[in-house]
């Protein structure tokens, strides 16, 4: 998998935000090792669109979101927003752009200052930028609180610890909306909430998006949630992009083996579907300090071949709006291995007695002239 490349990006003029070749690396203490949290990820989003960024823990999705916000600045790459490249923008100018890009975090209670009153918290952005004062300020705060479903009269003088998780998240959303931003990045906004509250908040986000004309980047690990809110979904694994597609298309015709495994692992509330051993993704996610060469997913992929270790796949189009970074995507050229073969490979991979089983090679016609036994091409 490991997606590099920018083929999936749309023309720069079309998009509100365009992140190109983002790289975020952290040093590990004093060992000299580096955590490759995000390695060459490019995403873009059109005005009025919701981009869903999905992946499991360690894939770098939250880090990508923060890198876009320059909190902190990425190690390298470009982030084009509103005609500026945020990465190279001096701090003072960057700060002035902040009202246009807001963020909502995973833990709603921790995102609010426990010592301040709700009215002060929501008014703070207006005060920082001196957008309003006095009665006008109060009015804006009141209206925004009502829009998110919080009774202003009841909440005005209260502090965050007097509210539930769902209500706190509403307050966070109000705080983000009060400056009328263009873009809001939602970093796992419903993961810490109860199931019945999740639905409320997801609906609220959709309503607010319509009401305030927002563009959203929605980061989550739950594919069902992401699919529900997004216009476009990007799947990440170990710091790289796997696949980008419209949500219905992604679900109906996943092209990347990881996406398919992810879809199959999701528990479905339907008792007739009895999940079994076949289709479960075996193995463990490799360490981001020493990610596998070539395609990062190759250590767990049932379709892996020699090429995958040597050449990193780049994003390429395989359908309308549908891009994948894989040498041997599902439904691609060449027949899929039969179910029995697939099961056999899966079993070989999940056997507990071997740590790194050698996956049997696929018996399929080679893709675009590259034979499985041909000498390796130099890495691109």
């Amino acid at each position, binding site marked *: 998998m490991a997606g590099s490349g920018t083929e999936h990006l749309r023309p720069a003029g079309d998009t509100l935000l365009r992140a190109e070749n983002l790289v975020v690396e952290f040093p590990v203490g004093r060992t000299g090792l580096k955590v490759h949290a995000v390695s060459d990820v490019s995403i873009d989003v059109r005005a009025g669109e919701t981009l869903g960024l999905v992946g499991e823990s360690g894939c770098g999705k939250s880090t990508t979101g923060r890198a876009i916000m320059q*909190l902190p600045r990425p190690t390298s790459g470009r982030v084009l927003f509103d005609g500026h490249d945020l990465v190279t923008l001096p701090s003072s100018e960057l700060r002035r752009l902040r009202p246009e890009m807001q963020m909502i975090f995973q833990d709603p209670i921790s995102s609010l200052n426990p010592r301040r009153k709700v009215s002060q918290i929501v008014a703070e952005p207006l005060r920082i930028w001196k957008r309003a004062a006095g009665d006008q300020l109060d009015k804006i705060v009141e209206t925004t609180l009502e829009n998110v479903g919080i009774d202003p009269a009841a909440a005005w003088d209260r502090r965050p610890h007097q509210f539930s998780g769902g209500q706190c998240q509403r307050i966070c959303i109000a705080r983000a909306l009060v400056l009328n931003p263009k873009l809001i990045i939602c970093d796992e906004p419903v993961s810490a909430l109860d199931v019945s509250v999740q639905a409320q908040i997801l609906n609220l986000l959709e309503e607010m998006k319509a009401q305030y004309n927002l563009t959203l980047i929605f980061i989550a690990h739950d594919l069902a949630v992401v699919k529900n809110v997004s216009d476009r979904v990007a799947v990440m694994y170990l710091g790289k992009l796997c696949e980008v597609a419209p949500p219905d298309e992604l679900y109906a015709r996943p092209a990347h083996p990881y996406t398919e495994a992810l879809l199959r692992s999701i528990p479905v509330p339907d008792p007739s579907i009895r999940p079994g051993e076949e289709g479960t993704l075996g193995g463990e996610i490799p360490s981001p300090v020493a990610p596998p060469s070539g395609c990062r997913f190759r250590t767990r992929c049932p379709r892996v071949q020699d090429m995958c270790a040597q050449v990193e796949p780049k994003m390429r189009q395989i359908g309308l709006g549908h891009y994948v970074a894989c040498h041997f995507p599902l439904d691609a050229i060449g027949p899929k291995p039969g179910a029995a073969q697939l099961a056999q490979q899966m079993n070989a991979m999940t056997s507990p007695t071997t740590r790194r089983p050698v996956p049997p090679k696929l018996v399929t016609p080679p893709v675009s002239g590259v034979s499985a036994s041909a000498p390796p091409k130099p890495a691109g």
Partner: protein
Amino acid sequence: MPEPSHRGAPVDAPGISSRPEIDAPAGGAREMLELTQLADREVEELQALHTLDPDQVPADAVKKRLGPLFWFAAGWFLLIVVLALAAPLMERAGFLPDPTKAVKCANPPCSKLGILKQGYLLGTDNLSRDIFSRIVWGARVSLLVGFSSIFFGLVLGGAIGVIAGFFKGKLETVLMALTDMFLAFPAILLALAIITFASTSNPGEEPRLSRQVAVILALTIVSVPPIARLVRASTLVFAQREFVLAARTLGASNLRIMVKEIVPNVLPPIFAFGIIGVAIAITAEGALAFLGLSLQPPNPTWGGMINDGQKFYLDAPHMVLVPCAVLFLTVLSLNLAGDRLREYFDIKESVL
């Protein structure tokens, strides 16, 4: 850093779990203890859950009690403060004799070493000066030195701590190295050095600083390093919280974040600690006065009185015991009050 793998768990900081570690005895007992502790925590969570919604719980349901000990301690301390503040008034009104002058005896002969029968509340010292009056005037010194040195210490140490904890990196290293340097000196020696330096003068000239100011300066400098360390530690914790990150996304400047987000959270627990700091400062002043480094005679100080009184311990024990008792009770009451206040604030904190 790799994202934490807890789904749904609060993201306090990368790699740091928000639950405390369990260290318990071995074997099956350990498991059961752990399980019970987990269950305990669940109960606490349930309790916390039900303190969270004021709509559903009657307002008078919980009253945190500070305890009778607190009120006793606070009462004593208040008495001392009132007396100290009222000293000039009392003197003008004639209730308080001049502490530096000998008092007239009502019924001669009056013993040089003071007798309660003569009508003076706590007797007199060897120079016939009223001890009660001296205690009250000495209280002014102790309280002034105690509070102002801790106040300035909080301001200066707090600023250093917040800046160090917020910016981290090289600035933090430098600031902490400086404070550590001061911490390395034994406090009394450092105070001694500062006082001596600040109040030396060439013969015939006024000293650079009055002795009282010098003492306050010395105690301030001595109190800054521990306060700075405490504040820095607290700042480190709060700076990682997401509301600080949120403030940054809103475009708040660093100064604004420090003043409006960090300080209000760091201050309350430090404030409670500050009260205990005052107790320490008063003791320190007493020690300095005992060594003759505080206000010079005939100005009364508690430590000075103890020093004077120790020679007469056998004949007139009250000369040394009274200031000792007063010093002891005052420091004790401050400690108790500070402790209780700290617990009181902590309980509220745990609900947050």
